């Protein structure tokens, strides 16, 4: 029996700390969103894991949730699906209450913040990325931490191999540490073309697949333009 007995503590009745049920697990995978001038891409690998086991080689985790918005929540898959399901239900309510008005990406982002923060003390264990076009038709990426802190960005990698991909994106999308060879000044920022972005995404994922065991099998890229949403699939290494 502990000497710290008091009416505040019910732990004192335990002499040994028992094995406790762990409500979380990690299902691996990695995600990546890049915004262009008039498009946005949101990509994710299709491997689904628990521990060292590959559960599935094709389990999509990037979703077209309607209103030309793409959403993914990478980390603990059960929480990810719950969050997205939650968001979709809220979206139906929104359409019902607002004469089927499309929900803007700005509003969607704020809504997701509230869904995440609503579970502040039993969080959704996920890194969330939302992609779409903003009110001016410009490509837009919003990324969230597990409890709802969010930011609009040009690009963001999330999930298992985020630490491998993110510096590569800094370098290749935002031209960080790159100088103009003529003038020696910082290289001018410019919007990348869709083809260039898709090539970057494919490079990023094949690099991550090479060095991260929870990444691989397949790459699914969802692309949103003013024409709508389109999906591309590329195989990745399965080892």
């Amino acid at each position, binding site marked *: 029996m502990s000497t710290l007995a*008091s*009416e*505040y503590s019910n732990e004192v009745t335990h002499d040994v700390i*028992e094995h406790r*049920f762990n*409500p979380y697990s990690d299902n691996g995978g990695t995600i990546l969103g890049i915004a262009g001038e008039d498009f946005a891409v949101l990509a994710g690998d299709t491997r689904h894991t628990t521990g060292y086991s590959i*559960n*599935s080689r094709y*389990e999509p985790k990037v979703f077209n949730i309607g209103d030309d918005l793409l959403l993914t929540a990478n980390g603990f898959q*059960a929480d990810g699906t719950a969050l997205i399901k939650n968001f979709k239900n809220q979206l139906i309510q929104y359409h019902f209450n607002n004469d089927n008005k499309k929900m803007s990406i700005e509003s969607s982002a704020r809504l997701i913040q509230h869904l995440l923060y609503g579970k502040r003390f039993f969080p959704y264990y996920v890194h969330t990325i939302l992609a779409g076009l903003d009110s001016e038709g410009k490509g837009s990426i919003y990324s969230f931490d597990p409890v709802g802190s969010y930011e609009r960005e040009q690009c963001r990698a999330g999930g298992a191999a985020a630490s491998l991909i993110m510096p590569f994106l800094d370098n290749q999308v935002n031209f960080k540490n790159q100088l103009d060879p003529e003038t020696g000044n910082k290289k001018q920022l410019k919007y990348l073309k869709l083809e260039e972005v898709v090539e970057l995404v494919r490079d990023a994922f094949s690099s991550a697949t090479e060095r991260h065991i929870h990444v691989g099998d397949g790459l699914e890229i969802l692309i949103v333009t003013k024409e709508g949403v389109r999906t591309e699939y590329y195989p990745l290494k399965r080892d």
Partner: protein
Amino acid sequence: MNHDPYHWGRPSNETYGQYNYKISNASNINKQFNNASSCDFPTMLTQQPMITGTSVIAIKYNDGLIIAADNMGSYGSLMKIDDLERLIQVGDKTIVGISGDISDLQQIERMLDDVELEESYDMESSNLNAEHIHEYLSNVLYNRRSKMNPLWNACIVGGFDSNDEIFLKYVDMLGVSYSSPSMATGFGAHLAIPLLREKVDKESDVVKLNKQDAIQLVKDCMKILFYRDARSLDKYSLCIINKTSKEIEFLKNLKCEDMNWEVGKNIRGYGIPQL
């Protein structure tokens, strides 16, 4: 001064009278008023499984899918039940294979029974398909885990979806779910999956596997599992879901065949022959 850290900063009883425990909302508040011993013990939720069932395995083939599970319920290393049915048919379109805690399995069985009953009242034809059962199970399991009171199971749901296509999906105690053309729970994920993936690794491999080969493959897997999984039995059930005939064959009391235990006597230590 009271040196108990839990009392630091607390108005002393001598000066202010007995502390009102209702303010603190402490979990052992009742003790002060009821003087009952029942609340000495904290509320207990499932922290570990008791009687358990081992692997469930499933694989798709060119005209449907096969799902199998053995008939044992073990209590630790004791074979408590040897005629346990872990493949549950729900309606005429779904088979659920369940591993993990058996009392929770039976609870799930009752819940699925209720669902089936409720759905049968006002429907002229049965509309309850495998997709619905999977959705229902994942919601139940996820909600229970979110209450920190899980149903300790891993389930494989197989059958037909809304378009009468073959449906196969997994869901476990955490609410994690995924689909794959070949899958297994528990030990099967380590021992059977490599064998199943040799034949069906991706969706496009499904057309290359016929029914006979698929049955043989699943039987081989059950044998391998019986060889190496100490909590498994050589008696098992096997369900074959046929896509074109829309029939579910339910085979019970199958035994592992053509077993060879000769290798056993050569195994020393951890499988490396010792001189």
